[in-house]
């Protein structure tokens, strides 16, 4: 009898040891696909979320921005993909309309946001015309100019350039007087290319735009081939005159290591980038030169004939239409938009809530970004018009890259871009 009792006890112990942990496994496994480089702090933020929600485990997936959109669309179309997806603000509407994102309206009703959806910027990019919300604006930013103060001083430049012509002259002066690169911008044409932003800022500041809404509500282009060729000529001059190294023709991203390294090392005087990239530059410089004051200053974009401008950009979070756990995914999305995420973990980004933005201390080096935010505009007709922003972005990048590298003449490249645009406007991207 004792033997039997002992056997039974051993069996129970064995079962509890094997089945127990299995039963204690989190009931819900979520996947969050994150496209930025801050993997470690984001993992720490997710660990905190898991502690607060013991029933939910979050796997963090990393992917580069360049492949993020098409990879996700392919997966979502066949019932796969992460539960929570990280997107550029301008992708959300087309991805939602493609049936890849879950509508957030019901989730918001059931579990409302602390300050409501109205607290968020870029709402126009998050929802379609029927009011279906596909994404929650997560971060916001705008690009600004970045200067190495010591390089400017060595070149005898005492004031930040105020116009596009002054920017060109300052860039030339840096190279002439110091032998260093002047305005080093990424001039490549890959899918996430930065030249798209520079081209648009240049056009907008001169009262032009690739897409405008006409008084009758229809959409059209407000650029001629000559306008495009002129802008290509302007940016090409930095390369042909040697202020922007030719190697930047194969750099497409604002965070291209060669450009960031040149700014940190002081071999380049001027750059342009979003704030998170700028913060990385500041951190890299501080790490390499402990105790030294930061020789950087940010400033607004140069003025054109009409204004100075940039775009209000940023990222959003969405929930996969195929997610088996939308309620838990929404819980994660809401958590990621809370204040501690931006103050403790994801510190290179600015929150997209107006209430949180008011609390941000931009500091001396970031003042230019704060100033530029006042001039920034939304994508407006670009986002509402018939051509997908992604397709226009790619076409513009390729045309500029072809012109700037000398593959095509500025006129031919401008004509090709106009043809591509006109096709996109007619056919909704096909």
């Amino acid at each position, binding site marked *: 009898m004792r033997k039997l009792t002992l056997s039974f006890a051993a069996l129970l112990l064995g079962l509890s040891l094997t089945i127990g942990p299995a039963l204690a496994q989190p009931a819900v496994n979520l996947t969050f696909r994150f496209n930025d480089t801050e993997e470690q702090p984001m993992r720490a933020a997710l660990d905190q979320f898991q502690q607060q929600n013991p029933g939910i485990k979050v796997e963090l997936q990393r992917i580069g921005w360049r492949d993020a959109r098409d990879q996700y669309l392919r997966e979502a179309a066949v019932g796969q993909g992460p539960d929570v997806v990280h997107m550029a603000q301008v992708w959300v509407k087309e991805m939602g309309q493609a049936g890849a994102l879950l509508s957030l309206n019901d989730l918001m009703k059931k579990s409302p946001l602390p300050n409501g959806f109205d607290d968020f910027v870029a709402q126009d990019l998050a929802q379609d015309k029927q009011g279906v919300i596909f994404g929650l604006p997560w971060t916001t930013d705008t690009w600004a100019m970045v200067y190495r103060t010591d390089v400017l001083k060595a070149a005898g430049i005492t004031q930040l350039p105020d116009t596009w012509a002054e920017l060109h002259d300052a860039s030339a002066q840096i190279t002439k007087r110091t032998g260093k690169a002047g305005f080093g911008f990424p001039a490549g044409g*890959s899918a996430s290319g930065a030249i798209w932003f520079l081209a648009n800022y240049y056009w907008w500041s001169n009262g032009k735009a690739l897409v405008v809404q006409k008084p009758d509500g229809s959409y059209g282009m407000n650029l001629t081939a000559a306008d495009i060729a002129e802008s290509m000529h302007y940016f090409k001059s930095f390369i042909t005159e040697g202020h922007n190294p030719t*190697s930047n023709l194969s750099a497409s991203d604002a965070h291209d290591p*060669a450009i960031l390294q040149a700014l940190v090392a002081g071999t380049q005087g001027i750059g342009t980038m979003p704030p998170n990239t700028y913060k990385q530059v500041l951190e890299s410089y501080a790490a390499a030169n402990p105790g030294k004051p930061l020789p950087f200053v940010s400033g607004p974009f140069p003025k054109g004939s009409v204004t100075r401008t940039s775009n209000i950009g940023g990222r959003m979070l969405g929930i996969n239409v195929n997610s088996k756990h939308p309620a838990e995914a929404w819980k994660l999305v809401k958590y990621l938009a809370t204040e501690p995420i931006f103050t403790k973990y994801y510190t290179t980004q600015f929150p997209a809530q107006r209430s949180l933005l008011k609390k941000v201390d931009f500091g001396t080096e970031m003042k230019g970004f704060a100033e530029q935010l006042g001039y920034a505009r939304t994508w407006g007709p670009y986002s509402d018009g018939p051509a997908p922003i992604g397709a226009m972005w790619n076409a513009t990048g390729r045309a500029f*890259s072809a012109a*700037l590298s000398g593959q095509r003449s500025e006129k031919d490249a401008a004509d090709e871009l106009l043809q591509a645009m006109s096709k996109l406007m007619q056919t909704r991207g096909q």
Partner: protein
Amino acid sequence: MRGERLFIALMLAPAFLVLALFYLYPTLQNLAISLTDLSLLRLKVGGNWVGLDNYREFVTGPDFGHILFNTVVWLTLLSVALRMLIGLGMALLLDSRVLKRVRLSTIAKLAILVPWATPPIVAVVIWRWMLDGQNGIVNAVLKNLGIVDHPVAFFADLRTVWPSVVTIIVWNTVPLVAVSLLASLQSIPDELNEAAALDGAARWQQFRYITLPFLMPTITVLTLMSVFWTFNNFVYVWLATGAGPGTYTNVLATEIYIKAFVDFRLGYSSAVGMVMALVMAVFGIVYYRFLAPSELKDSL
């Protein structure tokens, strides 16, 4: 006789089934997509029938000649020719008495395998760093030797971008050719060269009339296989240049990728894929018509 045929058919059926499932079905599906305007943003809805519009647009488009030239001349002809020539040279060197005499033969044979064992992605990253316009070692050496005054942007300058890509391809793939030719070289009976030498044949004559004819079957097969692998190749160009600057290094494989996953035009991209498959089919016909029968004959 009839039973024998049935038996053969039954034995072949699984292979045919696999071929139909994994080759025929995707090909037909791709053909069907190529006749539509399917977009990655409309995958769930499907595409509309556009007939041969995608083919017409590609073949009559301004980039068709440029892409075809890049694919055929730069990517395939040049890199295959260099691979075969350098591979032959390396095989002859590895088989030479000089290396054996200085006892470097084994080390050289092992060293030659290093590029082959390097995955293409790693090879491209290594070469991109070495050829970097700002911090690359190649530019540092060229500057120190006084060959250039300013760094060369190898992947951005139109004059150097293709030679740079071809260099990576050849570096990464030449060992296969070298090792294969070395194996063939070692199968040539020594007596032939000894007899020729006794008859007064010079080294060049021995190579021209003994070595080369022996190597020709291997060279032919390797050349054709190299053409297949290279013509189809996407990895090297995409990773090295992203088909740029502009579209300067765009080839058929990268055009398929760009149209499908950058511009989201799956229908158009499928049409480019079908054109590419047709060109490959021509190579296939050449192989089966002229080379396969002789190989079959040799093996019997």
